[in-house]
């Protein structure tokens, strides 16, 4: 059996009678990335804060990096790091001073802390801004400083709570690259996100969270497969041939045609046969095709069908 880095069972957390977590469970093998996917207010952040020992819980059991979250929080804190949704550095200090401070609070020696700070500034491309106040950093720089602060002592488990929310695409890619590199080095990552493509890009397994519990889990592919068949999609050149194309494709299965986009969809089971058959039939009927391919359902669609609402939807609480 592989090592389990994060294990949670029946976690329950109530705020003034409202359950933020209700029977939350999670199991993340060491050295993998688990994506917690869900809308605002689903309980993702609550779960992360509990697992990172920042929040007590009312019932259940949780273990992180081999230590019990409720009974051995000090051991947990030795082995984890957290980068939250909001900047968790001291804005009044410079980037370098922040890293040295956190190094010292990690009980590194004075010199060691300084050396480590320099390494991290280098690694996160912050050398030029090292002595500027952190408040004057751009959003992307702040997030990099945050990540650097989390990596002062290589954590066994890294919690990333919406690490790329509000970042421009370039900064987002930088964060993603860092995460990928960490995982190669053996770190376990628990990542919460509202962005489906982020989960798709980074996560080995995804747990879909809604109203305080995990409503589905699996690899990104499994989740997509779980909610429906693959589809053959065809976009034809001429609007007038839509009827002909529908007749041709109906040999494969029921056709869903959209006249506005000249797109036709057919649910398929045997993907290759369907593709070959469709291509041949369309050519024989002399219908010009702009696009032809097999599409898997997107995670967006998966999410919609699992929770009954879209991922970006704001929770009204």
């Amino acid at each position, binding site marked *: 059996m592989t090592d389990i880095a994060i294990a949670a069972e029946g976690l329950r957390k109530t705020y003034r009678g409202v359950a933020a977590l209700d029977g939350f469970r999670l199991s993340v093998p060491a050295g993998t990335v688990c994506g917690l996917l869900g809308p605002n207010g689903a309980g993702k952040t609550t779960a992360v804060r509990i697992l*990172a020992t920042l929040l007590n819980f009312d019932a259940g059991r949780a273990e992180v990096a081999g230590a019990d979250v409720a009974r051995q929080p000090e051991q947990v804190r030795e082995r984890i790091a957290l980068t939250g949704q909001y900047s968790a550095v001291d804005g009044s200090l410079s980037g370098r001073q922040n890293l040295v401070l956190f190094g*010292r609070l990690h009980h590194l020696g004075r010199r060691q802390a300084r050396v480590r700070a320099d390494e991290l500034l280098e690694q996160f491309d912050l050398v030029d801004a090292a002595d500027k106040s952190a408040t004057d950093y751009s959003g992307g720089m702040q997030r990099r400083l945050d990540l650097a602060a989390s990596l002062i002592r290589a954590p066994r488990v890294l919690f990333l709570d919406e690490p790329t929310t509000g970042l421009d695409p370039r900064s987002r890619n930088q964060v993603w690259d860092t995460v990928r590199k960490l995982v190669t080095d053996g770190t376990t990552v628990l990542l919460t996100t509202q962005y489906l493509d982020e989960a798709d890009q980074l996560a080995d397994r995804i747990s879909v969270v809604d109203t305080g519990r995990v409503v589905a889990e699996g690899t990104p592919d499994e989740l997509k497969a779980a909610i429906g068949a693959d589809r053959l999609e065809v976009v034809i050149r001429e609007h007038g041939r839509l009827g002909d194309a529908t007749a041709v494709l109906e040999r494969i299965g029921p056709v869903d045609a959209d006249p506005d986009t000249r797109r036709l969809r057919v649910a398929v089971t045997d993907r290759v046969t369907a593709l070959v058959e469709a291509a041949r039939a369309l050519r024989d009927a002399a219908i010009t095709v702009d696009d032809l391919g097999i599409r898997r359902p997107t995670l967006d669609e998966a999410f919609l069908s699992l929770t009954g609402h879209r991922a970006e939807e704001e929770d009204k609480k």
Partner: protein
Amino acid sequence: MTTAIADGWTMTGRYLRHVVREPEQIIIYFSLPIMFVLVFGYVFGSGMAVGGDSYREYLVPGVFVMTQLYGLGATATAISLDISRGVVDRFRSMPTARSALMVGRSTADLARAVLEMLVLVVCGLLVGWQWNLGPGQALAAVGLILLLRVALTWVGIYLGSVVRNPDTVSLIVFPLAFPLTALSNVFVPPDRMPGWLGTISEWNPISATVAAARELFGNPGAHGEHALLLAVAWPLVLLAVFAPLAVRNYRKLGR
């Protein structure tokens, strides 16, 4: 325990660095005490007398203590600001002693208070105040004032941990601090006040330290046998109450 001390000390360095990085704050920070001594000492001190003695000599030790009381505002604001920001999440997710933030703040504030006292004494001397019983006793008086400051710092830390909104904190400090100074022996001797008011003033923790300081400086208005004892006891009581409460509030952030 050694970890707790080391972490607290690291955090002290953090707060002192804040001051160094924003030097304009120092100017604002010291303008109030300087103003207190100059304005109160010079303006009021020129026009009043307490039983034939110099009012200025009577007043200045009171202003020393009053300044320490107002220092509580900066403490409370800084703590509530810290708690409202994400950086405390990082501290709390690290293997850092949970007492570090508050212990660090109180030590840093003590360092500021020492500097403050230095400035205040110089200003006092400039307006014609002096100590009359030798430097040893004068230092003891300063020591008692600093002891009160440490206790008040913890009141401020507690306040900052209860009222989480930094804006609210800075608003409530003045209405809290002002009556405490007015209803004390800072400006007027309690025996000149109406009976019940005088009693309140006598028992005010601020009065205890002011009376003891006057006694040790050899300034007029020192009376009551227990002044020194009270000036030690009151701060210790405040500390014993507010320090545990404040640390408990910090631990309770996880609720």
